[in-house]
């Protein structure tokens, strides 16, 4: 099993066995308080070294600009290095991770303002991970960023079962199809938006046994297309949040609240509430009598067991293909462009990505602004999913009686 592959990235010809991985984890002698890297193998080595050495670690998405990282590092996490000594072998790897006291910090956009750090204990990260002999031959298509909660779930599920992880994240759809077949992938977890990219064409992938979707509202019209493309797969949709981790699963659109967390979930005025006992650690949670308001609007389908379907987001965060966009953040940056007097950013429903970002811009008198120049300006300041697709140049932006911009989701 030592010679089993741990990680394969065919786009760069990288293949690492578990033996390689153990050696490289043991070779980590220094850790920062955070990891930011688009080299996923190096990322995993550092992450596991942090877990084994009980070192708290924050994960920063590789797409963050240097400016954004500086903000995170100075305001939220400290940049310090520590020396560590790791001595793990293949057989002790599992237990050392499961028993780790490490807290892994992930950033969430929250409801407004700058990203907030949410720290998950190993208990929280491992809640939905299943270790058993029935999983020992699983081969995982890794289609999330490892800084995303869902990405961590897939990573830990694969690692603790000593499975192989095949990088799919960041590849184009042709490459993904080739990798699924070439590497005999059996399990793929990703967003509905990615699966919409994959389901076209005639080829099928009969070896795939499990498809898991999450990160966005599930699209029921996508299911027949997924089943046609992956005819032997069981398809599940997972509700997970950065704040609480994985909570519910469904094979349709209705989520059933598991018995063991029944008393820690409630629905009030159609909003899903989670008890603080299920939450990760954070300075930013606002609780009301011990309950966290998720901002997810749901409809109760059945009372016992509590079963619900997801309707929409309540707050202003816009979900674009599984990525949450804070409109205020985008407005702040557009407002710095010469000639912009006022701007409002909002979402509009879209059949491909769930939502797209739109903006209305009021220009300074006689200043001519155009979409192309604005998009070019935003390119190195924002991740691509945050950059508006629709630009309306308007005379004014309507405000409510209290002077707040009217941000209507269309």
């Amino acid at each position, binding site marked *: 099993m030592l010679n089993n592959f741990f990680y394969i990235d065919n786009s760069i010809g990288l293949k690492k066995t578990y033996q390689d991985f153990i050696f490289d984890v043991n070779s980590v002698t220094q850790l920062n308080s955070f990891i930011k890297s688009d080299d996923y193998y190096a990322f995993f080595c550092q992450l596991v070294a942090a877990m084994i050495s009980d070192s708290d670690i924050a994960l920063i998405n590789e797409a963050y600009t240097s400016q954004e990282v500086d903000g995170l590092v100075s305001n939220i996490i400290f940049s310090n290095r520590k020396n560590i000594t790791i001595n793990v072998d293949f057989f002790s790897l599992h237990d050392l991770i499961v028993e780790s006291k490490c807290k892994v910090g992930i950033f969430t956009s929250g409801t407004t303002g700058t990203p907030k750090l949410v720290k998950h204990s190993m208990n929280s990260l491992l809640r939905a991970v299943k270790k058993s002999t029935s999983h020992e031959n699983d081969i995982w298509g890794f289609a999330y960023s490892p800084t995303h909660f869902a990405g961590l779930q897939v990573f830990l599920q694969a690692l603790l079962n000593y499975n192989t992880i095949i990088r799919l994240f960041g590849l184009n759809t042709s490459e993904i199809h080739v990798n699924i077949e070439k590497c005999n992938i059996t399990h793929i977890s990703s967003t509905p938006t990615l699966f*919409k990219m994959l*389901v*076209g064409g005639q080829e099928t992938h009969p070896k795939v046994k499990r498809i898991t979707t999450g990160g966005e509202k599930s699209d029921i*019209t996508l299911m027949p297309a997924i089943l046609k493309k992956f005819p032997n797969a069981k398809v599940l949709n997972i509700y997970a949040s950065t704040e609480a981790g994985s909570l519910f699963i469904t094979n349709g659109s209705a989520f059933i609240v598991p018995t063991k967390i029944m008393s820690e979930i409630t629905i009030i005025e159609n909003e899903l509430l989670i008890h603080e006992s299920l939450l990760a650690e954070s300075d930013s949670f606002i609780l009301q009598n011990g309950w966290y308001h998720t901002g997810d609007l749901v409809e109760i389908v059945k009372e016992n067991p509590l079963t619900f379907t997801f309707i929409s987001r309540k707050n202003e965060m816009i979900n674009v293909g599984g990525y949450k966009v804070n409109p205020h953040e985008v407005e702040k940056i557009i407002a710095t462009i010469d000639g912009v007097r006022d701007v409002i950013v909002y979402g509009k429903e879209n*059949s491909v*990505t769930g939502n*797209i970002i739109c903006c209305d811009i009021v220009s300074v008198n006689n200043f001519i602004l155009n979409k192309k120049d604005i998009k070019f300006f935003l390119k190195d300041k924002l991740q691509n999913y945050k950059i508006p*697709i629709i630009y309306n140049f308007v005379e004014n932006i309507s405000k409510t009686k209290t002077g707040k911009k009217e941000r209507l989701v269309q």
Partner: protein
Amino acid sequence: MDKLKTIINNILEEAGKSQIDELNASQHLQNDIGFDSLELAELTVNIEAEFGVDIFLDGIVTTIGEILNKIDA
């Protein structure tokens, strides 16, 4: 077909990608034209603005031919 080609090339140009000289029905939106999911989202918006049809509303569209069928339907 010309209007569709213009819409497609505008998106490609803004994305800094190579534009398409000719469209044909068999071209694949991702593999041949080179669209990612955000660009496909923009494509649906622009096609709907021009032709009044949301091409992804009833299911996945993967080729130029499938788009033309929906626009002409």
